[in-house]
């Protein structure tokens, strides 16, 4: 019987935790039933058990037949994953190569140094690609984990061609725009990640490898990265839902404000750094501090834009009001 238990335990290892014990118990009772049937007289020998298990199939195969599909990125998400990855990697490569080329001007490097710098670029590309893929993967895994409910069938029933947005609808949802935005957010994450690793904002880099850094507490970068990841998640949800809804728009507002606030703090650090530089002087310092005081006003603009959007959505949800709104839009054009 030892073999039987070993087998059942092994099957259990590949099963999801939920319902695992139940499946194991059922498997045990089945296998014992089968043994009873095969061995008419006496106790089943080890060879009997072995033959039965061999026939029943490998533990992995048996566990897999319970088929609660466990995907990191499932078939629904996969095409999207490929798309984001493709655009993102392309974007990263282009951005890094441009940055590298720009860096070459004004530097006086020998051929050997140039060779080293190119090698460095390849290394940078590799790390950037890895961390981009990593963050995309995390987002996709979260989506997969929580977005797995296959409501597609029900949605299809409710779907009606008439519910398609009008061509000049201000909320017409552009998939391409959304993807580009996601890719840029991805690049933003890379930059933040780079700054975090460097211990602050990199102002200038002289090849080979000498950077001027404005020290910024790492926590700012971490928070900004987390917010950016959440923003990507919201955008992905919007893409899956086929358009903005009031909750997603509200979430966007929240993340925008959070990101805005942290950037505000970071800019404060940068200004404090500039002000004490030997090349800084009265007029520049005054301008910066004055500008900095105005900066929070931008937050009001963000809130205003979101409120306008949300109000429009409420109008849109009500067909009567929507007509009025569309007319108004047309007349103002």
């Amino acid at each position, binding site marked *: 019987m030892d073999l039987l238990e070993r087998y059942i335990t092994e099957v259990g290892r590949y099963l999801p935790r939920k*319902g695992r014990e*139940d*499946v194991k*118990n*059922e*498997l045990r*009772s*089945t296998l*014992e*039933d*089968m043994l009873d049937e095969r061995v008419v007289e006496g106790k089943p020998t080890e060879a009997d058990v072995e033959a039965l298990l061999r026939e*029943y*199939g490998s533990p992995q*195969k*048996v566990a897999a*037949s*319970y*088929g609660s599909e466990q995907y990191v990125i499932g078939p629904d998400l996969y095409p999207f994953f490929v798309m984001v990855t493709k655009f993102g990697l392309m974007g990263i490569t282009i951005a890094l190569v441009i940055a590298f080329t720009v860096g070459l001007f004004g530097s006086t490097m020998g051929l050997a140094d140039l060779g080293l710098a190119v090698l460095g670029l390849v290394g940078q590309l590799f790390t950037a690609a890895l961390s981009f893929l990593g963050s995309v993967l995390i987002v996709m895994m979260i989506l997969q984990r929580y977005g797995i409910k296959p409501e597609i069938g029900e949605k299809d029933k409710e779907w009606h061609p008439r519910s398609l947005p009008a061509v000049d609808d201000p909320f017409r949802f552009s998939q391409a725009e959304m993807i580009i935005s996601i890719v840029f957010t991805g690049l933003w994450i890379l930059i933040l990640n780079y700054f975090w690793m460097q211990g602050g904002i990199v102002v200038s880099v002289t090849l080979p490898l000498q950077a001027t850094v404005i020290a910024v507490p790492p926590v700012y970068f971490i928070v900004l990265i987390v917010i950016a990841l959440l923003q990507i998640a919201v955008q992905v949800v919007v893409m899956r839902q086929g358009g903005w809804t009031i909750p997603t728009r509200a979430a966007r507002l929240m993340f925008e404000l959070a990101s805005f606030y942290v950037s505000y703090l970071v800019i404060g650090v940068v200004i404090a750094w500039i002000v004490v530089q030997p090349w800084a002087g009265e007029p520049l310092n005054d301008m910066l501090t004055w500008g900095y005081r105005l900066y929070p006003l931008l937050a009001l603009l963000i809130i205003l834009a979101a409120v306008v959007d949300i109000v429009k959505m409420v109008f849109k949800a009500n067909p009567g009001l929507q007509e009025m709104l569309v007319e108004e839009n047309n007349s103002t054009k």
Partner: protein
Amino acid sequence: MMTKAEFTEQVEKLTQELRRGIVTLAVLSQLDEPQYGYSLLKRLGDKGMEVDQGTVYPLLRRLEQNGLLQSEWDTEGSRPRRYYQISPLGREVLAKLCDEWIDITGALNVMLDIQTPSTTNEGE
């Protein structure tokens, strides 16, 4: 050209696909009275429908999760067994599936030029 092995593999794969939905119908039809997995398997086999255990047990669980079956552990017999029985919802679903089955087989018999189930004409 397809080798014989590839041909067999192809046929097996398609047969499996074809049977997948039918097994559900067969299982639901045989659970008026409570059965445990292994007894159900034998019952299906006796009626000419050989089904692999690897298919039946997970299917039973899925059907139960969807509310088409009810199950209960019976710990009084020689060993604990999980008995499955069709639920009221399962009965309703089964009736619908039966209608569907009649329609499909009717239509396909015509398409495949199979006269009636009783004749042995294979329809060249």
